[in-house]
């Protein structure tokens, strides 16, 4: 299915870009925090609202990373039982697993979208800087939507693979 393939490649490219953006945000958070610490230690005072900026950045970065993680099929599953099933059943369950991710992704994206509407309407701001919170929700909607689409794509093209690693 060439159309699906092309869509898949576009999704992958956007997810990659978004993940890089998340990485830039994360690096910026680290640099901002270090600058703030150095300023504080030297007696110039911490950067005003540094904690808030880190919080806003963290949420943005995590949302940006979600589609990439799904593209790498990196969400944790327990494969030990289904590996013993016949191949077709295994692939079917793998598809269903990705479908559940897509469903949950769609619900969450819709809820965050509603949340974005509320943040815009009431103009929620951070405590110290008075920075608007809604950009974090925009990242949520964009990341959530792309995550959902990629999960759908994974459901259509299930692969047998050992579960990639967990954290720690």
């Amino acid at each position, binding site marked *: 299915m060439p159309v699906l393939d092309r869509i898949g490649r576009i999704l992958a490219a956007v997810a990659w870009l978004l993940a890089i953006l998340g990485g830039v945000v994360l690096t910026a958070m680290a640099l901002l925090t270090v600058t703030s610490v150095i300023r504080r230690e030297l007696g110039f005072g911490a950067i005003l609202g540094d*904690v808030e900026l880190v919080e806003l950045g*963290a949420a943005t*970065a995590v949302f940006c990373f979600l589609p990439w993680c799904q593209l790498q099929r990196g969400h944790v599953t*327990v494969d030990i039982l289904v590996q013993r099933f016949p191949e077709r059943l295994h692939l079917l369950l793998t598809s269903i697993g990705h479908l559940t991710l897509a469903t949950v992704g769609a619900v969450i994206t819709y809820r965050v979208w509603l949340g974005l509407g509320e943040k815009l309407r009431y103009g929620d701001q951070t405590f110290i800087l008075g920075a608007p919170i809604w950009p974090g929700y925009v990242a949520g909607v964009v990341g959530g939507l792309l995550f959902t689409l990629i999960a759908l794509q994974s459901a259509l093209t299930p692969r047998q693979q050992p579960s990639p690693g967990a954290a720690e």
Partner: protein
Amino acid sequence: MSGLELTIAAFILMLVAIFLRVPIAVAMGVTGFVGSWIVRGQPTAVLSQLKTLPYDTFSSYSLSIVPLFLLMGQFATKSGMSQALFRAAADWLGHRKGGVALAAVGACAGFGAVCGSSLATASTMGQVALPEMRRYGYSNALATGALAAGGTLGILIPPSIILIIYAILTEQNVIKMFAAAMIPGLLAMLGYMLVVALYARIRPDAAVTAPRVPYGERFLSLAGTWPVLAIFLVVIGGIYLGKFTPTEGAAVGAVATGLYGIWTGGLNLTTFVDCVLSAGQTTAMIFLIILGATVFNSFLGTTRTPQALADWVAGTGFAPMTILTIMLLTYLVFGCVMDSLSMILLTIPIFFPIIEVLDFGMTPEETAIWFGILALIVVEVGLITPPVGMNLFIIHSMARDVPITATYRGVAPFVASDLIRVVLLVSFPAISLALVRWLF
């Protein structure tokens, strides 16, 4: 249906879903969502909570330490620290029986001081040490087993992502948890080294010795590991002395490691992108599980099961040690098939209230710290126990020609040393608490 029955039903359904390959985060989140719906009689409250919950969870300041430490660990893998550590360890230990494997374990411990993740440690040190061990003709079982086990030192020796999550869940002081993990972490290293030494004596053909290196060279290569020591001291020391918060410490560590990587030339635009993508993938995976666990735990809270269970356990009059043993065994059993973070997030909300009402003859805080270390170690054993042990898979993926059964065989004595250590730590809480008592 009572709250307890509902919880049990929810747990069973969730585990069935997980074993049918529903992603763990989804299984927890959906079970929690449906459970809360049943308890409240309508889904509106949870649905409305979901509008802000993802943002609120992902923007948590205390959790933002996780991606920062992951980034630091990724930078460390590209900065040449792993090579320097292994070189120094091999110069000092290589001429002993099983020396190259001893060096691999020692280098893993050193790398654990700048990396909070067990998989990153196993894969980084594996890339450096596995070719060396094979060059000296080490048996495949010993080489892969030592590296898989050594990888767990990445998380036992602070910083440690799992300990951070535990500290947040149970509202403990992160730096006290780190302090408590130090001695058990070093004990783990010594235990693994002892295993290698015994192995090399029982099977001398499995582990050839490398030539002895003169002391001048040894000190030179030891000096080459200064960045690891410096970054560890600045990050952990800075947090301990209150110079900065744990999150700030992680940021300092990430920037320092990144700068060092740029200086050594290991970190350039290409490898930076690799680092970011890798840290990002793990971050997303962790935070999605945390989100699912948050929904599940808010359901648990509405059923009041944890308190009821804790009261019930306290009322039965079982010896606290019996209950602790049951919990640790549960971790060991589930660790064979589940990943460590999911286990901690699923069980701590249930286990911790029980631990809190049991009397182990320590202050509540000391009990919490001690239990955290025990839980950390038993879930980490899960990383090297067959059939599903992530570290085994990582090392296996680097040595495709080694059958996974050889790795299973090779890691068995290391698992045994883990179990002995757990018994020691359970019997003597002071091993975990001594440093905390001395420092704070």
